[in-house]
């Protein structure tokens, strides 16, 4: 027998629609209808700004933002990603083969990434910026061409 969490999760997944039941939009609609004003700024932009600030603080604390190094394949590669849905996703690649990097990013963004076969590895830490920005950074660091399909 399923527990309450699984039942609730099934229910939500069955009915989930993107951009539905947005609290910020509902507040805006309410104030437009009643002619009242916001007491506190809220909505997607607020969350986006808060998330951006949090991401910057997180990355600076980790001390690895913007540092890329190219190394040859040697020790057992490790691909790590932080697991959180309350903060921006942080990719951490430590001597990870290019194929694994592309596989990880493909899964995350839902876009197929391809590159010529290579034994190059990537060591890098970056937040989940736009896919184009990340791909451009990897292309520069590894001197390769990556195709987004």
């Amino acid at each position: 027998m399923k527990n309450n969490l699984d039942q609730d999760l099934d229910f939500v997944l069955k009915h989930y629609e993107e951009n539905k039941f947005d609290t910020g939009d509902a507040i805006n609609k309410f104030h437009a209808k009643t002619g009242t004003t916001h007491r506190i700024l809220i909505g997607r932009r607020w969350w986006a700004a808060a998330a951006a600030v949090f991401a910057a603080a997180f990355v600076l604390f980790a001390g690895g933002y913007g540092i890329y190094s190219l190394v040859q394949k040697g020790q057992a590669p490790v691909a790590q990603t932080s697991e959180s849905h309350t903060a921006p996703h942080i990719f951490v690649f430590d001597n990870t083969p290019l194929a694994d990097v592309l596989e990880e990013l493909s899964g995350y963004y839902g876009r197929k990434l391809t590159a010529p076969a290579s034994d190059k590895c990537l060591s890098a830490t970056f937040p989940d910026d736009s896919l184009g920005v990340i791909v451009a950074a990897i292309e520069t660091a590894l001197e390769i061409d990556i195709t987004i399909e």
Partner: protein
Amino acid sequence: MAGQLDIDGLFRRYYRQMCLYALHYVQDSDVVEDIVQEAFLTIWQKAQDGAVPLHPRAYLATIVRNGCIDFLRMQASHPEEDLPVSITAEEEDYLDSAEQEAELWTAIDRLPPGRRQMLLLHKRDGLSHKEIAKRIGVSEGTVRNQISRALKSLRGRSRTIIPLFFI
């Protein structure tokens, strides 16, 4: 100002909960949004007249439930038919579940886009891992892995919030 009613605060606390609650009665998200919006309007108008409810969640839930039943009555082939007036035990469960369902909805909103897409294609739309892999252009293993991660983060969402404040 509507008495001591913090209408924005009420929206933030209860809007999504009330939408999920209403969704148990009416499976049309547009109608649900209208019903819940009307409920907040009602509570605000009452507050303007000096009637600020002591228990706004229960008050909202009652208005939302009545709004749903009115809608269903209009949709029914025999509008004159009486629908249940008293709240059943099952309906009590709807309200109890709504808070957790609202949290889950928010957690799904915050999943990485690709991961969310794969999860919904599988769980909501019924596609197999293989069909999703073919549609998106990634390996079947990636699909399985991403869906597994999504479910893990949704089930463990309450455990991941607190530690982040101390990073």
